């Protein structure tokens, strides 16, 4: 690891905004929170992965991976961040380094040429260049190449110096925020500013989740001026320093960025979630209150309350018909962070029993909330090995698993309904309408007759069901006398 990168990582862990960090001793704080990985028992992405998923939803930027094929080639085009405009972010760009490039030390020259080819072909507002293990190891100075390319081609080339071996995915998200702080935020001034301009950090507009929230903000006259990185344009990242308030969504990783922006430009931030009914209301309330504190019109608060009352009533009315279809079902939640609790209360309201929730990646505050909602700690667990999860589901201690795609097959192989609530999901579940969609998904899944069929024993495995009565089948007709004459002559049908 280069000294510069080492310093960046050190700084990233010196995070006063982080509650977990504040609780540690000075000594422990220095070590950071990256746990060493266990060979043969590690899972998940690397730091490069984290940086890429954080920044890739910036839709008009060309994201160029400086690496041998696998880093870019095995990972492009696999996230569901939606764009309302440019589709350039969906294009996979890589320098596809070959053995010859590495041996001959041609990495930097190839990178420079690749940036030029992108600028000439696509004319993006910026090119983000991602370092990876191999290119960092052979000592390619991507910062220098980016600097030279920016000067030569007149398009900003932004170095994202986060090679995979630097650490976990979470660290990569953190460092991606740091790279934006250093190279992008504050480099452009917006054309106009309002008292209700906000930043949203840590949302990625997966399957359009941001658009489930945006109508609410539109009605309140709140403008998303800066975004990292839901449906973001490059300029929306560059002008983030002019927002009045920052909302930090679901992202422990980017808290460092939010705090730095508060220090540098005096933008206060709050952590909020758009999952679940009460959380959505709470987030809107806090956002409006903070905007008013910073000079927005006083009536914003009243309009916000009116909106909340209207939307909550609408959501509850929409949920009511589902109650009899989902009541009494037992859910096992295996997710992380604030999602450990944010949907729990909404599910409980519908009579769904939450038998357990994981508190991986959750803060102390998150955990306290779980205890408050669920009574005690017995329903809380850290990691669950697939084997144990399979056994739990097989023993039918839960009717539904709600988790990320990683556990999908554990549930399906245990013949248990599974609902995707993580990043790869195909349905948006944000805000009031998202909660209704989530419950509809639960209904659709648990009440599907397929479960009965996949659990049915095979004909050779015991009696199973009694043979079905042949209802609907007509009794076999007595064979008719063969029709005489030429009726069945195939020639008759030739012209059909």
């Amino acid at each position, binding site marked *: *690891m280069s000294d510069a990168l080492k310093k960046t990582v050190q700084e990233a862990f010196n995070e006063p905004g982080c509650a977990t960090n504040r609780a540690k001793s000075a000594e422990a704080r220095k070590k950071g929170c990256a746990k060493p990985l266990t060979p043969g028992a590690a*899972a998940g992405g690397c730091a490069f992965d984290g940086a890429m998923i954080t920044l890739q939803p910036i839709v008009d930027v060309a994201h160029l991976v400086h690496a041998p094929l696998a880093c870019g080639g095995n990972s492009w085009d696999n996230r569901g961040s939606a764009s309302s405009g440019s589709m350039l972010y969906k294009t996979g760009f890589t320098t596809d380094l070959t053995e010859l490039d590495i041996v001959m030390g041609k990495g930097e020259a190839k990178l420079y040429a690749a940036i030029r080819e992108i600028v000439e072909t696509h004319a993006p507002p910026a090119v983000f260049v991602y370092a990876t293990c191999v290119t960092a190891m052979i000592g390619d100075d991507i910062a220098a190449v980016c600097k030279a390319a920016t000067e030569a081609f007149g398009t900003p080339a932004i170095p994202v110096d986060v090679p995979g071996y630097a650490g976990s995915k979470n660290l990569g998200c953190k460092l991606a925020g740091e790279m934006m702080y250093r190279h992008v935020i504050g480099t452009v001034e917006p054309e106009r500013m309002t008292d209700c301009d906000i930043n949203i950090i840590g949302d990625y507009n997966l399957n359009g989740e941001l658009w489930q929230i945006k109508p609410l903000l539109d009605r309140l006259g709140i403008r998303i001026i800066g975004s990292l990185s839901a449906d973001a344009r490059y300029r929306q990242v560059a002008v983030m320093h002019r927002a009045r308030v920052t909302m930090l969504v679901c992202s422990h990783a980017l808290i460092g960025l939010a705090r730095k922006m508060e220090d540098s430009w005096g933008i206060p931030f709050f952590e909020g979630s758009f999952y679940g009914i009460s959380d959505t209301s709470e987030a809107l309330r806090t956002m409006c209150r903070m905007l008013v504190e910073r000079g927005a019109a006083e009536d914003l608060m009243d309009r916000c309350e009116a909106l909340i009352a209207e939307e909550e009533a609408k959501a509850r009315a929409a949920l009511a018909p589902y109650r009899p279809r989902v009541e009494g079902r037992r859910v096992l939640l295996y997710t992380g962070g604030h999602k450990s609790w944010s949907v729990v209360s909404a599910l409980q309201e519908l009579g769904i029993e939450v038998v357990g929730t994981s508190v991986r990646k959750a803060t102390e505050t998150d955990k306290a909330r779980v205890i408050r909602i669920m009574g005690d700690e017995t329903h809380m667990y850290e990691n669950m090995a697939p084997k144990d999860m399979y056994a739990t589901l097989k023993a039918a201690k839960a009717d539904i698993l709600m988790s990320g795609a990683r556990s999908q097959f554990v549930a399906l192989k245990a013949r248990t309904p599974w609902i995707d609530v993580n990043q790869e999901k195909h349905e948006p579940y944000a805000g009031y309408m998202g909660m209704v969609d989530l419950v509809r998904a639960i209904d659709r899944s648990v009440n599907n007759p397929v479960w009965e069929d996949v659990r049915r024993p095979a004909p050779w495995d015991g009696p199973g069901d009694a043979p079905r009565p042949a209802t609907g089948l007509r009794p076999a007709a007595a064979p008719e006398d063969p029709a005489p004459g030429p009726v069945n002559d195939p020639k008759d049908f030739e012209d059909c």
Partner: protein
Amino acid sequence: MARLTRPRRALSTNPLKSSAPLGAAMAYLGIEGAVPLFHGAQGCTAFAMVHMVRHFKEAIPLQTTAMNEVSTILGGAEQIEEAIANIRKRAHPRFIGIASTALTETRGEDVPGELREVLARRRDFGDLKVVYASTPDFEGAMEDGWAAAVTAIVEALVPETDPQQRNTDSRQVNVLPSACVTPAEIEEIDRLIRAFGLTPIFLPDLSTALDGHLAEDWSGRSLGGTRLDDIPAMARSAATFAIGESMQGAARLLGARGGMPVQVFPSLTGLRAVDGFVRALMALAGTADAPPAIRRDRARLQDAMLDAHFQTGGLRYAIAADPDLAYALSSALAGMGAEAVAVVTTSGTNPIVELIPAEEAVLGDLGDLEAGARKAGAGLLIAHAHGRHAAQALGLPLLRAGFPINDRLGAQDICRVGYRGTRAFLFEVANAVLSHPHDAARPEDFGAAPIEPEFEHDRPQTAPH
């Protein structure tokens, strides 16, 4: 016959290739009770695993040595040892297949040497078969990684046999399928071989491992595959068949180990290709006849060829795939009068590229496919699922072939080999062409003046039928 060109440029736009270690991992998954292990950073494994999960819609037990900055500098032998110990504890595998990555290869570790030491020292690993293949990401494609893994398995697990002492089973035949052969295709090849009274041993065998079946228990290992006991027994087979030119090396090594004849079939798609295979089976079985089912399949293929030739004759299409697959599909289509107007492939080491029926094959990406298809006015694209962006941009139908197919279900069930598979493939192509809406012809298209407006009925036109 295709001339291989390498575009002079620094940028790859929309990669076509999947990496070599991924290919190796997939091959390892075709061995019973296996856990593949990547020697590299955590991300190398995560990306490959997600990629395979999305294609097969199955849990993929892929593990990592989780190299960090310290082990990257000091060497990863300890990481490998620890990984094997941990995997044994957690998943109780019978076989661990290791694949290197760009990270460890750039560092230049002597993994085989270190592994030998580890296995000699750790007596408790004795019941476990460990195989290592060198598969840097910066060299070759999925196909090459797969072939390297199979070669490594043969090298490690098939004993050298003295031809004098050989106890040949005259009805047993080894089959080494290349990376592009799907689980359903293995099944079809198996059926063909057994129809002649022969018994095949497939290495690897995805047809029992990644065919998508519901098992009775949760296992952190592969769900099936070539039985470990069958691998040394391959030395006794009467012959070794390779499906796909990329398996040439592995097949030669296996042939040498068992002192048996080797035959490489570059493709089993297309009438002539299948005829060649059937002829070889007849020779091996010592018969001049084929069973009725096979005869019927062939007759049905011939009929299908006649039905489909209206759509395939003169069809201009663009194809992007690993060399073996690109050759198999394009050679079958050439036999049907279709012309490959743009060919993009991934690996320059497979000599079969030169036999692809096209003027030029570009060693490139899906950006090349899009540009080539646009320039040549192609009417159909054949590529893996990521080709959908090009198909959308060009307004063309896309026939999905290769890896990954992550936006459709049933990738494991695609069968385009044998008489039956070829028939299905020709129907797929013809139907893709038929489904593509064409604008209705207008007089102007032929240079004729449009009908005078005074003859037109002046009511607003409703949708025509």
